[in-house]
C-alpha cells in the first residue's frame, strides 16, 4: 500500500501479516494474513484444532508469534504484553470474576487505569444500560442467567473502549434456543458499539448469521476469506464447500471437458455434468463434486426434464420442519440428501417411492482431488 492511499482508504483496525506460530514440531498457525476494517464483524470459522484459538490468543497477547507481524491501528503489537494492548477479549467461559459483583467486574479495567471512583460508577452504569442490563451492579455473578452473563462479559470489555474486541466462542456454553437469540443480539450490540469484533467459532451458522466477513481456517491456514454469501455459495476449496453448510460429496473421474462443461463418472458409475470455472481438472483426473441438498430438485418418476436426471427410490424421510430432507438411493446404490420443497409438494413421500432427482450443472461445485 502506498503512503498516499492512507489518506483516502481508512486504515484497517487489525492487520495480520504472515503470522506464524510453531509449537515444538507442530505448526499451529501457518502464514496467516488478513485485515479487518474498522467497525466490522470478522469471524474465523474452523473445526477444533485448526489453530483459530491460537490465532486469537496471539492477537490478545497470550501467545507470542514465531513469525510475522500483527498491527492494531497501525502499531505493531509484537512484544507488547496483554495488559498494554488496546484489545479486549470475551473468554470462552466468559471468565467473570466470581469473587466480585457485577459492578466490580465491569469496573475492573477502569480501576486498573486509575479512573476516579465516581466516574467508574457512572461509566459502569452507562455500559450496563447499553447492553440492556440497567441496575444489576450489586448482583453476584451467579445470580445472572447465561444470556445476561454474556452481556456483562461484553460490557466489561466495552467499557474500556477497545479498538478490537476478541470473542472466543462465547456462545458455546449456551443452550440452543438462547444461542439463536444471542446471535442476533451479538450482531446488534456490535452495530450499536460500532467496534471491530473478531469472533472465532466452529459453528458455521453463528459465523454466517453475524459476520461481515468470514475466514475459513483449516490446519493453521486460511482457506478462504469472504462475505458469508461468498463463502456459502462460492467456496474456493473443497474444504470450505464441505465445512460450510450441508453438501453431498461425490468422488468422480473426469471423462470429458468442453470449456467450463465437465463430464464426470462417479466411482459408483453415475454420470454427471458440472459447470465449473475450477482449474486443475483434466480428463482422467479425480475430482470431488459438492451438491447442496437445496439445489437438487425432486420430480415424479416419469419426469425427465432438466439435466443430471437420475431415477431413484426414497430411502428415508427426515422430517425437520423447514429443514426436512429425503435420502434418495439411485440405481447404483449411492445415497443423496435432497431438501424437501417448502411447498408441501412431496409431503406424502414414503420410503420406497420412486422419484427422479435433477440438478443444474451451474450449482454444483467441483474440485480436483488433493487440492
Amino acid at each position: 500500500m502506498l503512503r498516499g492511499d492512507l489518506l483516502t482508504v481508512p486504515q484497517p483496525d487489525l492487520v495480520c501479516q504472515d503470522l506464524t506460530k510453531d509449537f515444538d514440531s507442530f505448526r499451529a498457525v501457518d502464514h496467516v494474513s488478513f485485515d479487518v476494517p474498522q467497525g466490522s464483524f470478522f469471524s474465523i470459522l474452523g473445526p477444533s484444532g485448526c489453530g483459530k484459538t491460537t490465532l486469537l490468543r496471539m492477537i490478545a497477547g497470550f501467545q507470542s508469534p514465531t513469525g510475522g507481524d500483527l498491527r492494531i491501528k497501525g502499531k505493531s503489537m509484537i512484544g507488547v504484553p496483554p495488559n498494554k494492548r488496546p484489545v479486549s477479549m470475551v473468554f470462552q467461559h466468559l471468565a467473570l470474576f466470581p469473587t466480585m459483583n457485577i459492578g466490580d467486574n465491569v469496573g475492573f479495567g477502569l480501576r486498573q487505569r486509575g479512573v476516579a471512583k465516581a466516574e467508574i460508577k457512572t461509566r459502569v452504569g452507562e455500559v450496563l444500560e447499553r447492553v440492556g442490563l440497567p441496575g444489576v451492579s450489586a448482583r453476584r455473578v451467579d445470580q445472572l442467567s447465561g444470556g445476561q452473563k454474556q452481556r456483562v462479559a461484553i460490557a466489561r470489555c466495552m467499557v474500556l473502549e477497545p479498538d478490537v474486541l476478541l470473542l472466543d466462542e462465547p456462545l458455546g456454553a449456551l443452550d440452543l434456543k438462547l444461542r439463536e437469540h444471542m446471535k442476533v443480539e451479538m450482531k446488534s450490540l456490535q452495530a450499536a458499539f460500532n467496534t471491530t469484533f473478531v469472533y472465532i467459532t466452529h459453528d458455521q451458522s453463528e459465523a454466517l448469521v453475524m459476520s461481515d466477513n468470514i475466514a475459513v481456517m483449516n490446519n493453521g491456514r486460511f482457506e478462504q476469506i469472504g462475505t458469508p454469501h461468498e463463502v456459502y455459495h462460492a467456496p474456493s476449496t473443497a474444504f470450505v464447500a464441505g465445512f460450510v453448510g450441508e453438501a453431498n460429496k461425490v468422488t468422480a473421474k473426469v471423462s470429458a471437458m468442453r470449456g467450463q462443461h465437465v463430464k464426470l463418472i462417479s466411482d459408483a458409475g453415475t454420470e454427471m455434468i458440472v459447470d465449473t470455472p475450477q482449474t486443475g481438472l483434466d480428463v482422467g483426473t479425480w475430482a470431488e463434486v459438492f451438491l447442496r441438498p437445496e439445489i437438487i430438485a425432486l420430480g415424479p418418476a416419469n419426469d425427465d426434464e432438466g439435466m443430471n436426471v437420475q431415477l431413484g427410490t426414497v430411502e428415508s424421510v427426515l422430517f425437520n420442519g423447514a429443514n426436512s430432507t429425503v435420502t434418495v438411493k439411485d440405481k447404483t446404490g449411492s445415497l443423496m440428501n435432497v431438501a424437501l420443497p417448502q411447498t408441501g409438494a412431496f409431503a406424502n413421500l414414503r420410503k420406497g417411492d420412486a422419484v427422479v432427482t435433477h440438478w443444474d450443472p451451474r450449482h454444483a461445485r467441483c474440485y480436483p482431488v488433493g487440492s
Partner: protein
Amino acid sequence: MVSDTSRLGFYLLLAPILLWLVLLIILPHVGLFVVSISEKIGPREYETGFDNYAAFFTEPLYWRTFARTAIMSILATALTLILGFPIAYYIAKLTRGRTKTTLFLMCMIPFWVSELVRTFGWMILLRETGVFSNVLQYLGVVSGPVEMLYNDAAIMVGLVYTSILFMVVPLVTTLDSLDDSLIEAGYDLGGTSTSILREIVIPHAMPGIVSGCIVVFMLSLGNYLTPILLGGKDSLWFTGMIYTQFITRFNWELGSAFGFLLLALSSFVVFLGLKLSGQSLSETMGRS
C-alpha cells in the same frame, strides 16, 4: 416413609459415632472443665471455685508464657503463609502434569515422617557441634563453634517446617481451581501482576488461606516437641507447662485449667478466622 429395617440400620449407624463423640470427646472435655474448677482442700477433698484460673492470672510466669505461645504461634502462621503461598502458586499454576505431581510429592514426603525425626534433623543441623556450625567454621565465617539451638529463632524454624505442608496443600487445592482464563482476563483488562494478585488470586484463594492458617495456628499452639527440643528447657511453651502440671507436679486441677485456657484460645481463633472470612467449619475443614 421409612421402613423398620432401615430405621434399625439408621440407629446401628448412629451408635458408633455417638459412642465415639460422647465418650471420647464431649464427656472428657466436660470432665476437664469440672476438674479445672475444683480446688484441692485436703486429701481427696475438693470444692468448686475458680482459684486455678485466678492462679493463672496472678502468676506472671503463667500468663506471660500463654501470651508468648499465642504470639509466637501467630508469627509462625504468618511466616508459613508468606513462605508457603509462592510455593503453592508455583505448583498450582506454573507446573503441569508430571512435574506438578513430583513437586507435590516432594512436599508431602517430609510430612509422612514423624515430627520427632524432623525435629531431630534440625537438632543435628543447628546445635553447637552441628552441621551449620561446622560449615561456618570451615568457611572461616566464625572462629569457634556457634550454638544455634535453644533460642526463639530455632523454635520458629522448626514450627514453620513442621506446619508448612498444612498451608501448602489447601492453597494448592484452591489455586488449582482458579481458572487460568480469570487471570488472563485480568491482564486483558489492563491489570498488573500486583493488582491481579490482590483482586483476583487472593480473594479466590481465601478459603484455602483461612483453612491453612487455622490448621497451622492450631498445630503451633498445641505443639510440644518442637519448642521443647529446639527451644530447650526454658522454651516457655504453654503445652510444656501443661505437661509439667500433669506429669511432674501432679497438679491436675491447675493443669486442667491451663488446658481449658489453651482450648479456649484455639477455639476463639478458629471462630474468629471463620467469621472474618465468612465461612463455616464444615466447608473449611471438610476440604483438607
